[in-house]
């Protein structure tokens, strides 16, 4: 895999004058070398430029003035004294534009970046109780969309810019310290993170080729520095966890529950014709579930039990972390450890993470560095929650424990187990994450600027989930042990050549790499235990035993080349090409090539801008790139699954069977997105106002799509490439230093971004001969509309008493718009209602400082515009056993004759209506996501305790949300993952947690 290479190189020779030689080094504010800075001796023609390490040497006489200029830095003058060594510190013109950002397979100064790259301001969230890195990202970068998780330690859904795929992967690539990371973000200790950079546009992500279509998040962990004395950091915080709002979404108490039953029986419980006067003959004990009345139905059970209270508690997060870092001449080190203990609001929603990290680098010789980035993370999620969906539907007339305090397995005498049966179980859930990345970084001797780096990254994850319950399997007992391991390695060879020739600067990067991933899973399960004394370690004693083993392998192989060229720090060019191979693609299309090119023009570097004093920095960028989308493995193969099918004859053994579950496609290929991006970076008004604007236009073709095929093929979907979708969007980020006084400051950052999605082409077929390409109605795809367009029945309120009903509908059910006015509701009556995706998102961060105090707040908002950001929030209800037996959420505005303006349907008969339309509601919201008040002790006090810094803070998270959405939370349902519906008015939704935190940071 190593590449042997060589190429001739023109070695420049230096010219020396007769006077004294002065050597020096040019660095920026962060101690990083500034290359290509022009050093001239004032009043002469003597000139040189700093090399890659910032070093220069020039002939000058004592007393001469050296002028050091570099386009993006403020000019500096230094007088030559007795010393032959001079250090020059340049301060950047564009504020933080001088910082170095990670761009993938290397770093770049922000001022040199041509693509759309954004750095997350980790300071914003430093005092927030975030146990997952994903939470840090929420709202911080325009174009980066981060949702919410309602589980302890959970990773929120993350996406960048608009949705470029229909059924391909929507996962953003995450790179940790140069190595792609496929494990959960919940394994990473946020305190270990030095920086997070986001690559947004195609020209920036093209270096990740086939995986770049959904953007790239580059996470860099903290490291020690050479020649830095040991630095000890300690952070500690305590956070409370209680639900934010959702007070209406609690199970009803006894009285409300019984009223709900009366309303369900409104045609019996009340007297006609208005059905508002109670019917004295109606006896509720006759209609409640049999389990809630005494035998013989003489009376209701007397209970008013609060199941919700039983299943919840005040949660907390305790977070402690400690790190030691530093370095000598030849070694740098960072060692850290942290313990996070999160207890959610629902009992046993727990997350415990212990993490350790050792980042070491050794410099045996000046031109060779070897290092290790290693971490271990141990997550403990033992314990199983009571079923939250059940907690909400268990009647207050029932109780969980009998008179002896034992769990009643099935209070309703049905297979519906008590919610507490999933709580009183043995549940052992552990995840171990091991990261070991070794790198060798070689500055090839004698060839200045040539570097060869080898990264060998290893990720290992082991998961154990062991479980035993005596309640499961119809109370015969069930136990299982599930073991899973995931291992992947990355092997990257990176060659970089970095050279400055006068006003020309060039960085060439070549990459050859491979990735291999391997998964193995074993599940051993037993049901039917005469006793469960040995819990999950006694599966051998089960009546029925079942073993499942699964696994997969996948591999990637890729090459990449990149040239970054700049002239005079004014004109920037980056060109990349990447060739990618992935095992998951069909045999005819294993490889694809992804090129990109981007240009930058630093306008403030031009002569004519020197007089425009209020513009400190202005850069235009334009980039074009082609990127791909990686699909799931085995997507192209006609899969044959096996199952335990049948038995022949009484007492015979299992006959195993096989079934073809998917159609194969030998021609399945990469989904390609070609994207154009224009950007402006600017700093104005003496660096007081900075920001950037982005506009992008991406076209995705050969969309990986599982097109719906008639079931009469025996299949539901066929995986293929088709069509074209367009995503167009803008991003604006503005940061203002509104007040900058000695004791006072106020900084404000406002971000706004939006995306429009449109389908341009689909199959290219016009089967109905109307002269237009056909939509794929069965998949909900329409040319000219968004891929998240809603084409559905339009609900028109609720059928009231006495109102004429369309056939197949009932009083109390939702009315449907009869588009063709033919008196029948069928699929011809569907209309375009709106779309699911939001129109734009905003965030606003403010930080006020007064002496040692800092107050900050962070607002986050998602807005749909007209008919956007919609989601189904319907509650279907018709009278049958379960709806009578089950409790429901209070505060849901149901229709009944008593409440004719009720919003949600309630049907009395036991049959569904012909069509029960979804009710789409807007999910727009504004959230006060973070508020923080901190205090940093003054140097005077610090010197007494010999500390570098000490700060204490109180903060609040998710303190308020302003929305018309009536479900659990408008943001929770933004993902189309497993928890898709949790944000709606559903009984298995979960509240978003809010918390108050106290904490401190100490640095020695």
């Amino acid at each position, binding site marked *: 895999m190593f*590449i042997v290479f060589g*190429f001739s190189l*023109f070695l420049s020779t*230096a010219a020396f004058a007769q006077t004294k030689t002065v050597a020096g080094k040019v660095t920026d504010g962060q101690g990083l070398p500034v290359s290509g800075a022009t050093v001239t001796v004032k009043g002469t023609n003597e000139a*040189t*430029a700093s090399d890659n390490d910032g070093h*220069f040497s020039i002939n000058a006489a004592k007393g001469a003035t050296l002028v050091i200029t570099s386009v993006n830095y403020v000019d500096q003058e230094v007088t030559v004294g007795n010393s032959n060594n001079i250090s020059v510190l340049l301060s950047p013109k564009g504020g933080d534009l001088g910082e170095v950002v990670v761009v993938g397979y290397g770093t770049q100064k922000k001022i040199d970046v041509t693509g759309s790259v954004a750095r997350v301001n980790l300071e914003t969230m430093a005092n927030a109780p975030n146990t997952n890195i994903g939470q840090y990202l929420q709202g911080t970068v325009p174009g980066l969309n981060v949702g919410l998780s309602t589980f302890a330690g959970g990773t929120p859904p993350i996406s960048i810019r608009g949705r470029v795929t229909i059924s391909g992967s929507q996962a953003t690539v995450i790179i940790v310290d140069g190595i792609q990371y496929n494990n959960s973000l919940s394994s990473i200790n946020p305190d270990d993170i030095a920086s997070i950079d986001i690559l947004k546009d195609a020209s920036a992500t093209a270096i990740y080729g086939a995986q770049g279509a959904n953007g790239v998040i580059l996470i860099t962990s903290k490291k020690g520095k050479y020649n830095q004395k040991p630095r000890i950091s300690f952070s500690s915080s305590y956070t409370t966890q209680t639900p934010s709002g959702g007070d209406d979404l609690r199970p009803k108490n006894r009285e409300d529950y019984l009223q709900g039953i009366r309303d369900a029986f409104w045609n019996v419980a009340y007297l006609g014709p208005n059905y508002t006067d109670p019917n004295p003959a109606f006896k509720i004990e*006759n*209609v409640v579930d049999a389990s809630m009345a005494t035998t013989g139905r003489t009376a209701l059970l007397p209970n008013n039990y609060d199941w919700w209270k039983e299943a919840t508690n005040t949660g907390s997060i305790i977070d402690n972390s400690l790190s030691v870092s530093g370095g000598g001449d030849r070694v740098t080190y960072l060692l850290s450890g942290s313990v996070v203990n999160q207890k959610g609001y629902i009992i046993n929603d727990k997350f415990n993470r212990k993490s350790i990290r050792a980042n070491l680098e050794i410099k045996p010789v000046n031109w060779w560095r070897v290092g290790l980035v290693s971490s271990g993370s141990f997550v403990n999620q033992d314990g199983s929650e009571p079923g939250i969906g059940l907690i909400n539907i268990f009647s207050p007339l029932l109780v969980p424990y009998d008179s002896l305090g034992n769990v009643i397995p099935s209070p309703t*005498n049905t297979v519906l187990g008590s919610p507490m049966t999933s709580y009183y179980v043995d549940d052992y859930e552990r995840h171990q994450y091991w990261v070991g990345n070794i790198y060798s970084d070689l500055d090839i001797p004698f060839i200045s600027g040539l570097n060869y780096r080898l990264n060998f990254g290893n990720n290992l994850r082991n998961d154990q989930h062991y479980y035993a319950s005596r309640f499961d399997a*119809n109370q*015969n007992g069930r136990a299982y042990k599930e073991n899973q391991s995931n291992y992947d390695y990355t092997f990257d060879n990176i060659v970089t050549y970095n050279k400055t*020739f*006068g006003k*020309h600067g*060039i960085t*060439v990067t070549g*990459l050859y790499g491979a990735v291999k991933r391997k998964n193995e899973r074993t599940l051993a399960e037993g*049901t039917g235990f005469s006793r469960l004394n040995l819990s999950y370690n006694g599966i051998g004693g089960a*009546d029925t035993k079942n073993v499942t083993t*699964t*696994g*997969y392998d996948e591999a990637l192989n890729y090459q*990449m080349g990149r040239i970054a060229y700049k002239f005079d720090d004014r004109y920037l060019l980056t060109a990349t090409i990447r*060739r990618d191979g*992935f*095992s998951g693609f069909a045999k005819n299309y294993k490889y694809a*090539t992804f090129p990109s090119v981007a240009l930058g023009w630093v306008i403030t570097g031009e002569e004519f801008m020197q007089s425009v004093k209020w513009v400190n920095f202005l850069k235009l960028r334009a980039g074009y790139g082609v990127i791909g989308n990686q699909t799931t493995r*085995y997507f*192209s*193969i*006609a899969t*044959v699954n*096996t*199952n*335990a*099918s*049948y*038995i022949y004859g*009484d007492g015979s053994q*299992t*006959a195993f*069977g096989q079934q*073809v579950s998917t*159609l*194969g496609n030998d021609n399945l290929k990469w989904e390609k997105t070609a994207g154009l991006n224009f950007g402006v970076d600017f700093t104005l008004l003496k660096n007081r106002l900075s920001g950037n604007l982005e506009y992008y236009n991406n076209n995705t073709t050969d969309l990986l799509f599982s097109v*719906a*095929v*008639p*079931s*009469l*093929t025996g*299949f539901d979907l*066929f995986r293929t490439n088709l069509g074209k979708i367009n995503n167009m969007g803008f991003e604006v980020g503005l940061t203002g230093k509104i007040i900058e006084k000695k004791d006072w400051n106020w900084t404000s950052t406002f971000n706004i971004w939006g995306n429009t999605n449109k389908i341009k082409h689909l199959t290219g077929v016009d089967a109905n001969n109307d002269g237009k390409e056909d939509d794929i109605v069965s998949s909900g795809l329409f040319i000219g509309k968004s891929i998240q367009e809603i084409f559905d029945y339009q609900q028109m309120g609720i059928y009231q008493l006495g109102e004429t009903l369309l056939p197949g509908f009932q009083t109390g059910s939702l009315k449907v718009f009869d588009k063709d006015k033919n008196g029948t509701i069928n699929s011809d009556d569907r209309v375009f209602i709106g779309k699911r995706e939001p129109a734009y998102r905003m965030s606003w961060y403010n930080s006020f400082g007064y002496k040692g105090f800092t107050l900050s707040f962070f607002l986050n908002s998602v807005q749909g515009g007209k008919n956007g950001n919609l989601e189904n929030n319907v509650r279907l209800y018709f009278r049958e*056993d379960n709806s009578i037996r089950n409790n429901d959420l209070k505060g849901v505005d149901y229709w009944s004759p008593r409440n004719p303006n009720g919003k949600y349907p309630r049907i009395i*008969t*036991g049959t*569904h209506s*012909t*069509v029960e339309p979804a009710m789409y509601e807007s999910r727009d919201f504004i959230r006060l996501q973070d508020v923080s008040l901190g205090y940093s002790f003054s140097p005077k006090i610090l010197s007494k305790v010999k500390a570098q810094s000490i700060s204490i803070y109180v903060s609040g998270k998710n303190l308020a949300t302003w929305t018309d959405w009536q479900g659990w939370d408008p943001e929770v349902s933004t993902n189309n993952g497993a928890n898709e519906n949790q944000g709606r008015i559903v009984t298995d939704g979960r509240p978003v947690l809010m918390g108050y935190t106290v904490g401190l940071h100490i640095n020695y």
Partner: protein
Amino acid sequence: MVFISTTNDNQKKIIMKKILSYLLFLVLIIGGNSCKKDFLDEVPVDFLSTSNAFQSNADFQASINNLYRLLREEFYTLNDNNVFEYQYRTDMAIDVTAATPNLVANYATNSGIMLGHWQRLYKIISEANTVVSRIPASKLTDAERKLFEARARFFRAVGYRSLAYLFGGVPLQTEEVTSPKVDFKRATKKEVLTQVIQDLTYCVTNLPAISAVKDGEVSIQAANHLLAEVYIADGQFQKAVDAATAVIATPNVALMTSRFGSMASTNPGDVYSDLFRVGNQNRIAGGNKEAIFVIQIQANIPGGAGATNLGFANAGGYCLERVHVPLVRDVVINNIAPFMWPAGDYSSGGRGVGFMAPSLWMINNVWASDFNNDIRNANHNFVRKFRVTNPNSPLYNTDIDFGNIPAGTKGSNGVTLVSGVPSRAFYPYQAKATTPYQHPNELYDPVNRKWPYSLKDGAAFTFRDEYMMRLAETYLLRAEAYLGLNNTILAAQDINVVRARANASPVLPANVNIDYILDERIRELGFEEKRMLTLMRLGKWYDRVVMCNPYYAAQANTKYNLWPIPQQEIERNREAKLDQNPGY
């Protein structure tokens, strides 16, 4: 390393050269060979692919095993809802939990009812097609080729036969689909039936005889039985007679006429009840000569579709007990519940929840001539009198008769029960829906045994093998065929073979007509046959529902003699039009 910045033309050239050499370098890298040629080959480790799953005898047997599973799922074990769509909305049953039906919604083109059966039946066809298409390239011997093709074509025949009855002419696909076909066209019903006949004719030649197969496997006799039915549907009555005769004439295939099997000496009981005792359905294991094609269900073995530890919520078992047996839990007389529920006895009928009651036609009309002597109407076969099992009831150990309910008896939701009127808590049920005293041991509640045969809350399934075809039906099919040939004498003879076994009086040839045969099928095959298929095969859905079942009659419509083609299929079939059935 110092460089003097005095740019000149020479240096520019040098720079250009360098850039070019770097690009060359990049191209070299990019063109580089990967470490191993097969690095990106995709080899699934935990599943097979069609390219390697159809080679050996064991491979093809695995596909056949799965076809049995799919068939069992569609007609018996999917859940407590969809499989009973073959009974609901017929002349024989009512949905006793709803005051009125909603046929408009049930038969809407977007209804899940039609789509579900369409999908499952076509999946059977698709899997069978794959077997047939993959045989030529396999390593099977000639004998194996014929055998597996015959087995696969049997299942394809069942699939297309069912689709043709329910939907009329449907698209005919007889080869493996390997590309995303979206331009299907409907064949005529005649074409579909012709295909079914071809398949079954192949089966009759190439399947083993019933004496040579394992319990549960298809045989020549099963193929002939089905062939007789399809010939009738196709109007070829003499061929139907011949096919049925081939079954009836098979040596050692006969109606059971004396008591047998696992509860042969238990009384009350008779040969008809013995047909439905646990363990009595199979030829080899149960000594049952009447059985032709038996769906295998066995408790607590993977592939047995009868896990006692699932409960109905996970389905996967046959929920006839749950769906058909009344919810006697809710019966209350003077504030006392007379029945201990759930229990594995006749009074509780297992753990029924009373969704699907017999129609009044089934309860009363069909038994008019032989109410007391027809053993199929004996109380242990069609339970109308329920023994009070609650010792605290003053009526303990007496019977409560559906035809004579004590005044003031309440049922579900406190409604007052009326003698002779089915109500969710109380109506006559077919004892074959449950397995009295024979529930699997795991379902009895030994810990909290509260009353005799008390069951756990997870009880729901009928844990017994099920007849897909038995000889009594073959006789009734041949009777239909004779009727089609206008030979009522022979038709009556066949019907009377069945009636004689049931101790019912013979029918006179003059009284034989299609309605009589349909009634006889209710008596003999009630809640056993897939009634919807029978009615729609004959195009008699509308007539029978109007005549026999007032619950549905008011909403009945002649268009419901065929189900609508599912709207979703019409939409997905983008490049050709699937015509909708008339009236929808």
